[in-house]
């Protein structure tokens, strides 16, 4: 059995820190990499070693395979953990890493390839008897073909770039007129972001929930699932709140989904941490395979808190060749966990709003976990994801977890950049969130209004008074400076005195 001595983390921000923590706990030296924009990033400070890998844009640093491999060789690492995003699902990267005799922390190349192409993935799922959404059974090349499919399955549909992910490279078409521009946009986003312009069409399930199953495989053929996470609270197709268990699953459906996920994983001999994302129809309680992510997910902590399994540690153990530390019978869901993503963004328009953090004091206290990389004075760079921190709370039951989250958000002092903290608080008290019926349309429907509730939670006067007192002090200090200047008359007066 291998034992890693040193591991390079090909990522930044909170996930790089999360992995550094696992390394420390396992006695593995950690190597951070950073771009020019990240010299002052916390992951650099917390790692054992740190190397610059190039200019700020991701393409020239965190996506620069050659440079990262070069640093890995120089530092003499045994393994590379890609985190999520960036190179985590790039088979070329895995090949380059393994060609140097370094272990890639993640699934095999064939695992990634089979799931990276969403169309091929759908075909495999069909074979594993996992329910899939009706749509084009292959890539769509022309507008005419797209039109044909639509005639067959009806609107609305969703066009997806086969290589896409993370909310990029997908467009919903509700009216026929929207088809042409959506088709073009997906093709060009696919080409620009993922280097592949292949697109396909699926029936768009209106008002679904997003529920995913965490699975884990080892090199000995064992596969377990670690239950579900519901991630339906989304804006711009990106998750902002996740919880486990899902308030919408019955024990029977939960077992059915878990078993389907295991069938899929076993069919492709899956190794490591993976997630099967499902579209869930809350009315019919049907679920359809959407895609499989062959990496650690942002929201993995809620699974860690409800199952007690350290997913990053498990990833490293599996990569070293150990069998899974748990059997399916031993995996138990205990209590309830919620995660919110705190992002530097305008809570109304959701536009990223990078800038310098002024005050920053994270929530603490019982059953609260914070995975964050910001600190007072830190400048959130414009080049990367606006997520600054994840707050994860655990409770004996759902309402306890929610109350704990509300408490934690209230405790979070964060000034200097716009953030979605107040939006999160408003969401947590929304009736549809509280009764668990919320769907992926929840934010779009309830929070894209002119003057949202989030701005009504406080007396306007608090803002006016504080600004007025500050303006008063600013103005006064300016006057004092002016008074301190010796006036010309006084100077002339002094000269006259001297003459006499």
């Amino acid at each position, binding site marked *: 059995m291998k034992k890693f001595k040193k591991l390079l983390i090909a990522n930044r921000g909170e996930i790089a820190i999360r992995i550094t923590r696992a390394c420390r706990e396992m006695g593995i030296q950690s190597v951070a990499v950073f771009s020019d924009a990240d010299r002052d990033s916390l992951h650099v400070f917390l790692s054992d070693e740190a190397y610059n890998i190039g200019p700020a844009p991701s393409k020239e640093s965190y996506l620069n395979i050659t440079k990262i491999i070069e640093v890995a060789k120089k530092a003499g690492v045994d393994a590379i953990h890609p985190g999520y995003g960036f190179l985590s699902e790039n088979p070329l990267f895995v090949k380059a890493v393994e060609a140097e005799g370094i272990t890639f922390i993640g699934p095999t190349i064939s695992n990634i390839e089979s799931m990276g192409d969403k169309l091929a993935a759908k075909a495999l799922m069909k074979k594993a008897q996992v329910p899939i959404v009706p749509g084009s059974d292959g890539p769509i090349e022309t507008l005419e073909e797209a039109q044909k499919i639509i005639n067959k399955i009806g609107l609305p549909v969703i066009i997806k770039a086969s290589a896409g992910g993370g909310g990029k490279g997908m467009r919903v078409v509700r009216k026929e007129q929207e088809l042409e521009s959506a088709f073009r946009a997906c093709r060009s986003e696919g080409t620009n972001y993922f280097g592949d312009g292949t697109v396909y069409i699926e029936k768009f399930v209106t008002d679904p929930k997003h529920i995913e199953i965490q699975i884990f495989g080892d090199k000995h053929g064992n596969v377990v699932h670690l239950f579900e996470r519901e991630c339906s609270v989304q804006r711009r197709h990106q998750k902002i709140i996740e919880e486990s268990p899902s308030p919408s699953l019955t024990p029977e459906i939960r077992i059915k989904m878990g078993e389907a996920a295991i069938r899929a994983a076993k069919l492709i001999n899956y190794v490591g941490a993976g997630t099967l994302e499902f579209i869930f129809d809350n009315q019919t309680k049907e679920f359809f395979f959407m895609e499989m992510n062959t990496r650690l997910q942002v929201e993995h902590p809620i699974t860690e808190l409800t199952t007690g399994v350290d997913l990053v540690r498990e990833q490293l153990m599996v990569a070293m060749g150990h069998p899974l530390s748990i059997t399916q019978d031993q995996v138990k869901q205990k209590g309830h966990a919620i995660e919110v993503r705190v992002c530097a963004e305008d809570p109304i328009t959701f536009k990223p709003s990078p800038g310098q953090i*002024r005050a920053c004091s994270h929530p603490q206290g019982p059953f609260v976990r914070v995975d964050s990389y910001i600190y007072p004075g830190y400048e959130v760079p414009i080049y990367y994801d606006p997520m600054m921190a994840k707050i994860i709370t655990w409770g004996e039951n759902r309402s306890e977890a929610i109350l704990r989250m509300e408490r934690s958000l209230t405790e979070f002092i964060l000034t*200097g950049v716009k953030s979605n903290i107040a939006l999160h608080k408003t969401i947590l008290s929304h009736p549809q969130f509280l009764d668990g019926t919320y769907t992926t349309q929840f934010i779009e429907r309830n929070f894209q209004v002119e003057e949202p509730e989030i*701005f009504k939670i406080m007396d306007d006067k*608090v803002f006016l*008074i504080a600004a007025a007192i*500050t303006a008063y002090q600013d103005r006064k200090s300016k006057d004092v400076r002016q008074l301190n200047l010796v006036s010309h008359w006084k100077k002339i007066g002094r000269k006259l005195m001297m003459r006499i």
Partner: protein
Amino acid sequence: MYFESEMNGKKYHIDVVETKQHWKISIQEEGKDWEFIEINKTDYKKPEAYVSFLYEGSSYLVDVVGSDTDYTVFTRGSYRTLKIFNDEMLLHRSLKNSGSMSHERELKAGMPGKIIEIFVKPGDAIKHNKPILIMEAMKMENEMRAAADCVVKEVCVKQGDSVDSGSVLIRFE
């Protein structure tokens, strides 16, 4: 000290008076009544980088970032951006607005102040940008110039006069 403010599309007049132990703040939302708020200085403290503000039984941690007329106030995970104009800025703004004088045929005082010197008399033809008078407001002398070519019809004030905001200073033909 007098300010005007804009927040969420609403306009406010604000007056701030500092005493040894209190902040006395008057706020008037445009079209509504003045409200007077007295804040004990022990309720508005800055022990850290940010302010601890105890207001009407609630405890707020507040951070104000201000530059020029733009202020952003952060508290309780929320924030608002607002505009604050102090006397100096209001004066500059009113001087800029005097560009409307050719249209309105009169020059008005944008701020309360004192007339220091007048350069024109009735019947004078004044070229654009020529000085008309000097007015002192808020400890500053401000030269008011012609926004366009015009002819003076009437000078409504004399040197040394104290004038209120909005009072007519000069009428034009």
